[in-house]
């Protein structure tokens, strides 16, 4: 029987599939459901210092090659998150926090409090393409900003830090190296692409209320895969390969490109949380058929 268990920054995972931030990560009860459906780890929806209502609807739309979203980081704020996630004992897999801020100081303020909760790691999305003040719209993905923010968070916590990068930035590998030098323990690659746009031609208006949104799903997958491939050659820390994975074969491709773990997001739209169990099953079947004993044996296979 092939073994899907793996280690990510010292965190034991029953399988390498990780619920990506922003998908179903709003409550403990949903995290538990996703864990029971077969995820190896789960990530909460990003938390900011103050509550945020996010953009008006429509915030999420689908198109022929995936999904576009401009949710705008709606979240109950730090206090709401502390209440929701202070006890994670009923979630049977490691839980990763995701935090946002408008600069290094705000990131550090959120990290300091969140770091005291029983999260396994803290993810810093420096790469959201649709929220003014945050992510790429605030220049957080440059090597300089990545270094400053990672350092600020590093000084507040001993927990593993994952830096989530954008597939858009020119200096992708430089940003990942900056994160590594500043003390990040892993790179989550990648956030949504773009932003992209869809126009309702009758209304003569963009469909998303914010006008543009991050592209995910099948359209993102080949780009995410290439990013993981490049980052694997640029840094020594592990990578959570995220972008359009919806089958066992896709997940194995990500591992071969250099990912230690694999993020799952938009696939939940097609299958619901049951996507996790199915993808894990498909990985096992493929590994059986190809005499691969451990999932770790596949990591970076394309580079050898």
């Amino acid at each position, binding site marked *: 029987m092939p073994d899907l268990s793996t280690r990510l920054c010292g965190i034991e995972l029953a399988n390498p599939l990780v619920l990506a931030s922003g998908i179903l990560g*709003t409550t403990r009860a949903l995290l538990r459901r996703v864990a029971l459906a077969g995820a190896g780890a789960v990530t909460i*929806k990003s938390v900011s210092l103050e509550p945020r209502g*996010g953009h008006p609807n429509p915030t999420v739309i689908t198109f022929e090659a995936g999904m576009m979203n401009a*949710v705008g980081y709606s979240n*109950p704020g730090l206090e709401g998150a502390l209440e*929701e996630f202070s006890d994670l004992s009923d979630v049977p897999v490691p839980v990763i926090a995701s935090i946002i801020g408008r600069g290094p100081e705000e990131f550090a303020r959120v990290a300091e409090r969140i770091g005291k909760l029983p999260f396994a790691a803290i993810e810093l999305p420096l790469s959201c393409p649709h929220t003014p003040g945050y992510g790429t719209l605030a220049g957080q993905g440059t090597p300089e900003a990545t270094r400053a923010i990672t350092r600020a968070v590093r000084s507040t916590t001993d927990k593993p830090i994952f830096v989530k990068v954008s597939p858009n930035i020119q200096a992708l590998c430089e940003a990942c190296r900056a994160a590594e030098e500043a003390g990040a323990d892993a790179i989550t690659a990648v956030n949504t692409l773009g932003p992209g746009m869809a126009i*309702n031609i009758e209304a003569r208006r963009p469909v998303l209320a914010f006008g543009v949104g991050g592209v995910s799903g099948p359209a993102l997958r080949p780009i995410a895969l290439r990013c993981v491939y490049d980052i694997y050659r640029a840094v020594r820390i592990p990578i959570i390969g995220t972008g359009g994975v919806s089958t066992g074969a896709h997940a194995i491709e990500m591992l071969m490109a250099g990912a230690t773990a694999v993020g799952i997001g938009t696939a939940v739209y097609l299958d619901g949380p049951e996507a996790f169990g199915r993808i894990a099953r498909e990985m096992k079947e493929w590994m059986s058929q190809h005499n691969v004993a451990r999932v770790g044996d596949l990591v970076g296979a394309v580079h050898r």
Partner: protein
Amino acid sequence: MVTVSAVRKESADTCTLWLEGALRFTPGQFVMIWLPGVDEKPYSISGEAPGRIAITVRRRGRFSSLLADRRSGDRIGLRGPYGKGFSPEPPVVIVAGGCGIAAVAPLKERLPEAVLIAGARTAEEILFRDRFPDMLVCTDDGTAGYRGFPTELLERTLDRDTVKTVCACGPEPMLRAVFEMCERRKVECQVGLERYMKCGIGVCGHCSCGDRLVCRDGPVFDSSALRTMADFGRTARLKDGRVVSIEEYATWCSV
């Protein structure tokens, strides 16, 4: 985009918009209605006719007021139908509170023998009286029908008739009371819930109730699901995800 083919006034603040286009749906399902440049919100499908469906809109905030201002010939955005609807085993009793009757009206039309109990605060808030002349009416103030809550009429009906399934939609404290009555009497219950929605397709997690998503697992939930949903009838989330009591949520929704 779909065309508004007719608008019917139902009460001082409520109207039904008939929308052109055939749509196969199960009563209890919803559609996302988009007013470009304004917002997008979920509405239960409240009626059906060949080549048309209806939604029923009560003026509450800016969006619903602008939607209720639409006239015949106007075009509005529509996606769906989404979610899971009612699937009752007859004999059926339907309980509607306030504008919750919109979600169960097509169910009553597909199950003409079902007993329909409709309650509201006062007579003018009772919708669809012409449409369902046989419905049992109750009002909090006694201005129409029985003076009291729909649960009281439900209890009498359950005492009198053999009932296999109770289907309900309306204010959540009422739904909780209906569910608990059904539990005590070992009758299957299905209720239609409402939560602030963003994606409508089961990915954003905003409309959760317990570990269920109202947009995708619901909006109609049966007894076996309701038993596990601790939030049901108690708490809901505001637009930013903060958890508040169901009463505070209802107040927030109405402004």
